[in-house]
């Protein structure tokens, strides 16, 4: 049972870490936490020239 629980926690942690590394845009999150006057501008674009 302990082995199963350990495996489950390891698996969930690994998937969470991979998700946070690959899918989360940290520059956006960190930028949005800055005071307004220090924030970089968020600039929207679409994949067309």
């Amino acid at each position: 049972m302990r082995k199963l629980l350990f495996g489950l926690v390891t698996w969930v942690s690994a998937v969470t870490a991979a998700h946070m590394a690959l899918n989360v845009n940290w520059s956006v999150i960190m930028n949005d936490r800055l005071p307004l006057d220090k924030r970089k501008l968020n600039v929207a674009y679409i994949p067309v020239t």
Partner: protein
Amino acid sequence: MTDYISAYSQSGQLFVPRLFQGFPEIKEALMSNKMQAAFMVAPMAIALRAQGVPVKIVYLGHRYGSAVVVRKDGPVKTFADLRGRIVAIPSRFSDERLILFKAAHDNGMDARALHMVEMAPPDVAGALAAGAIDAFSMGEPFPSQAEMAGFGRVLFHARQYWPDYISCVLVVRQDVIEHRPEAVQMLVDGIARSGLWLEDGTRREAHRVHASDFVGRYYYRQNPSLLRWALTKPIDRVMYEPLSPRRRDFELIVRLMRETGVLDHDIPFEEYVDTRFAEGASGMTPWKYEAGSNTAQ
């Protein structure tokens, strides 16, 4: 592109780029202040301002780079053959729609004889391949996508009917212009330098090939060979200079918008364009950056 190169410069990242898949979503994000600036089609920016949304155009994204594409093996051989057919456009408020009106006028036709439908840009090439539409009027790289895949043929490029054609413009919220003009200037300067880098004399083609690679991979999430096609076949298919907003270009767009029923009153140039940032960027030089380098100046 500016984001990628500036990250290697001393000033570091100048802004935070955010990928969207359609113009209506960009409009909403701009209005709700989720985005402080955006690249969008010029008529949409003008219409937003005319509706009282506090935004202004400060710079262009590029010149040219839009085309009308039909099926290679289809029945449409000339513009007149588009009569009664389904043509996809990115938005009612787009230069890609206006160019159809301009081309129709020059061919002695009424553009209302075309059945125009709005479609998100990434969907048009697939729709043409599947036969769901007969043609599309769209910015690059979607004309290139249809050409590269072998099922599409460019009926005409926008410049054929519209010299100095512009489509994509940089729009900034008025409150940001008022309270953080230095941030706006930094953004415009970076874009100006990127444009000059893409048009940089003998390095022009090499820079465009390199830009296709990193923009395709990291920003557009598209096959880099597609962007390479769009930026080099021919080399002036999309141009990145001059990018200063010119009064006569925008007054033509306003006139066409009025004539085609998407703008109900005239709007003076100064009300929707702020030229001071373009003027501030006029002395800029191209980025000093080459492929594989880890510094940019």
